[in-house]
C-alpha cells in the first residue's frame, strides 16, 4: 500500500548533523496521546448513566480497543517498518482522532454502537499503529542505548494516563458545572463526556501531527559519534545480523519471548486491574476497611507512577546489565514480591504498597525492554514488525489476567466482603506464571544462522535494504 509522497520514508532521511535528541519528543508526542487508553475509568460511570447500560457493556469499548491494538500492531507491523515512522504516526493520528470524533458523535446521538466503532475499533487501530510507530526508528537512532530510547517512548504510554485523567476531570467540570471531581458521587453528564471526546480529539491531532512532522530516520550508514558497533557484537545474545518478521515468528526465540511477555503482563495486570478494591480488602476489619476510598485512589496513582518510572529506569538499566538478566530480575524478584504480598502483605500498609509498587515497576519495565530484546535477537531490519506481532501477548494477557483474578475472587466471596486471604490463590497463580516466564527467559539462545538475512554484499547489486532470505 503506497503512501503520499510527503509521508514517504525517503523524504525523512536525516542529513548529516541532524540532532537525534529531536526523535524522543516526536515519539513521546504520539505515546503520551495514545496512553489516554489507560484513563478511561474517569468517565466510565458517566457513560453507564448516559446510555443506561451495564458496566460490562461500557467496558467492552476498552476491550475492543485493546484487542484492536494487538491485532493492528501484528497486521500493520511490516507496513510500518516499510513506510517509516512519519506515515505510521500520521495514520495512527488519523485513526486515533477519528475514534474520538466518532465516539463523541455516538454520545451526542445516544448510540452506543458508534462508541464501539469509534473509540473501540478505529481508536484501537490508532493505538496499535501508534504504539509500534517510533520503536524501530528509536532503536536505529540510539544503537548505543536502545533500552533508554525505547524506554523513553514507552514511558510516554504510561504517562499518557497521568495527563489524561486530571485533564479529563477538569474539562468535564468546564462542560458540566454540576460535576465536581472533588466531591465523591457526582457524575458528569453525557454531553460533558461528548465535549471531552471532541476536545481531546483535537488536542491529540495537534500533538500527534507535530510528532509525525519532526520525526526523521537515520541514513543507512549513520552511527552516533564515538559509537563502535563491534562493542555491541561482543555482548552475548546480541546479534549484528538481521531476521525478517516472517522468519522471526518461526523461531523458538520469538515464542519464548512471547511467553515471557505474556507471563509478566498477566501478573502485572492482576494487580493493576484490582488495585483500588484490593488495598481496601487487604486491610478490612469486619464490614469496613481501614483504607479510605480516597487513599485507595492515591494508591492507584502511586502504582501509575511506578509503572511509568519502571519503563524508563529498568529499560535503561538493561543497556548495562543485558536484556536476559533484567528479565530474570522482573520475573525472579517479581515472584519474591508476589509471595511477600500474599503472605505478609496484610501486616502493614507500607509492606503492601512497597510490594505492589515494585511489581508494577517490573510490569512497566517488561513492556519497555522488550523492543531492545527483540533488537538484540533479530537485528534492526524488521524489529518494528516483529514487535507488533509480539504484542499479541499483551492482548492475550489483557484477557487472561483479569479472568484469573476475577474468577478466583468470584469463588471466594462477594465484593465488599473480601479479605486478604481471598486473594492468595490468585496471587500464587501469578507466582506460577512468573516461574513459567522465568524458565522461558532462561531458554532463550541466539537465533540460528539459517534464519539470518543475506548481507547486501552477498548479492550482486547493492540494495538499500537486505534482501529477504530463502527461508520463509
Amino acid at each position, binding site marked *: 500500500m503506497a503512501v503520499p509522497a510527503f509521508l514517504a520514508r525517503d523524504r525523512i532521511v536525516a542529513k548529516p*548533523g541532524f540532532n537525534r535528541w529531536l526523535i524522543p519528543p516526536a515519539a513521546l508526542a504520539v505515546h503520551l496521546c495514545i496512553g489516554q487508553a489507560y484513563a478511561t475509568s474517569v468517565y466510565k460511570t458517566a457513560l453507564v448513566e448516559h446510555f443506561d447500560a451495564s458496566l460490562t457493556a461500557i467496558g467492552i469499548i476498552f476491550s475492543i480497543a485493546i484487542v484492536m491494538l494487538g491485532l493492528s500492531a501484528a497486521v500493520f507491523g511490516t507496513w510500518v517498518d516499510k513506510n517509516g515512522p512519519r506515515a505510521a504516526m500520521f495514520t495512527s493520528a488519523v485513526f486515533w482522532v477519528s475514534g474520538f470524533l466518532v465516539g463523541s458523535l455516538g454520545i451526542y446521538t445516544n448510540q452506543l454502537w458508534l462508541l464501539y466503532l469509534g473509540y473501540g475499533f478505529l481508536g484501537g487501530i490508532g493505538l496499535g499503529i501508534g504504539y509500534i510507530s517510533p520503536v524501530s526508528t528509536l532503536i536505529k537512532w540510539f544503537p548505543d542505548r536502545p533500552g533508554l530510547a525505547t524506554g523513553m517512548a514507552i514511558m510516554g504510554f504510561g504517562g499518557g494516563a497521568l495527563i489524561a485523567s*486530571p485533564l479529563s476531570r477538569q474539562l468535564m467540570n468546564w462542560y458540566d458545572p454540576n460535576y465536581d471531581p472533588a466531591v465523591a458521587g457526582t457524575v458528569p453528564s453525557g454531553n460533558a463526556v461528548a465535549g471531552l471526546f471532541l476536545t481531546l480529539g483535537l488536542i491529540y491531532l495537534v500533538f500527534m501531527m507535530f510528532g509525525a512532522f519532526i520525526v526523521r530516520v537515520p541514513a543507512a550508514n549513520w552511527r552516533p559519534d564515538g559509537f563502535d558497533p563491534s562493542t555491541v557484537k561482543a555482548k552475548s545474545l546480541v546479534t549484528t545480523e538481521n531476521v525478517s518478521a516472517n522468519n522471526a515468528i518461526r523461531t523458538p526465540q520469538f515464542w519464548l519471548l512471547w511467553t515471557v511477555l505474556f507471563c509478566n503482563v498477566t501478573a502485572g495486570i492482576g494487580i493493576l486491574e484490582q488495585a483500588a478494591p484490593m488495598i481496601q480488602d487487604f486491610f478490612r476489619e469486619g464490614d469496613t476497611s481501614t483504607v479510605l476510598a480516597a487513599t485507595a485512589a492515591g*494508591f492507584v496513582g502511586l502504582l501509575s507512577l511506578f509503572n511509568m518510572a519502571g519503563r524508563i529506569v529498568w529499560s535503561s538499566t538493561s543497556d548495562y546489565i543485558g536484556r536476559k538478566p533484567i528479565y530474570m530480575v522482573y520475573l525472579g524478584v517479581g515472584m519474591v514480591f508476589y509471595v511477600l504480598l500474599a503472605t505478609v502483605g496484610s501486616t502493614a500498609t507500607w509492606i503492601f504498597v512497597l510490594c505492589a509498587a515494585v511489581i508494577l515497576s517490573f510490569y512497566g519495565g517488561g513492556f519497555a525492554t522488550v523492543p531492545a530484546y527483540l533488537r538484540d535477537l533479530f537485528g534492526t531490519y524488521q524489529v518494528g514488525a516483529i514487535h507488533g506481532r509480539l504484542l499479541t501477548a499483551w492482548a492475550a494477557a489483557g484477557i487472561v489476567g483479569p479472568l484469573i483474578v476475577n474468577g478466583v475472587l468470584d469463588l471466594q466471596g462477594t465484593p465488599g466482603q473480601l479479605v486478604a486471604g481471598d486473594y492468595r490463590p490468585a496471587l500464587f497463580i501469578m507466582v506460577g506464571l512468573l516461574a513459567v516466564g522465568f524458565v522461558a527467559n532462561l531458554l532463550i539462545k541466539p537465533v540460528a544462522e539459517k534464519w539470518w538475512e543475506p548481507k547486501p554484499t552477498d548479492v550482486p547489486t547493492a540494495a538499500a535494504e537486505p534482501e529477504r532470505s530463502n527461508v520463509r
Partner: protein
Amino acid sequence: MSTPAPRTGEQPTTHTPVGLVAFAWALVGVPLAYGLYNTIKAASALFG
C-alpha cells in the same frame, strides 16, 4: 581563502536548531509535569 568544494556524492550537512529541540521537549515535558504533579498530589493521600 576558498571554501573546499564538496566531494562528489557527499550529502549536505544540516544543523538542528537548539530552539526546536528545546521546544519539542517542552511540548511533551510540560503536560507530563502537569500529570506527574496531579498524580503525586493524589498519591499523597496514601501517606497523609
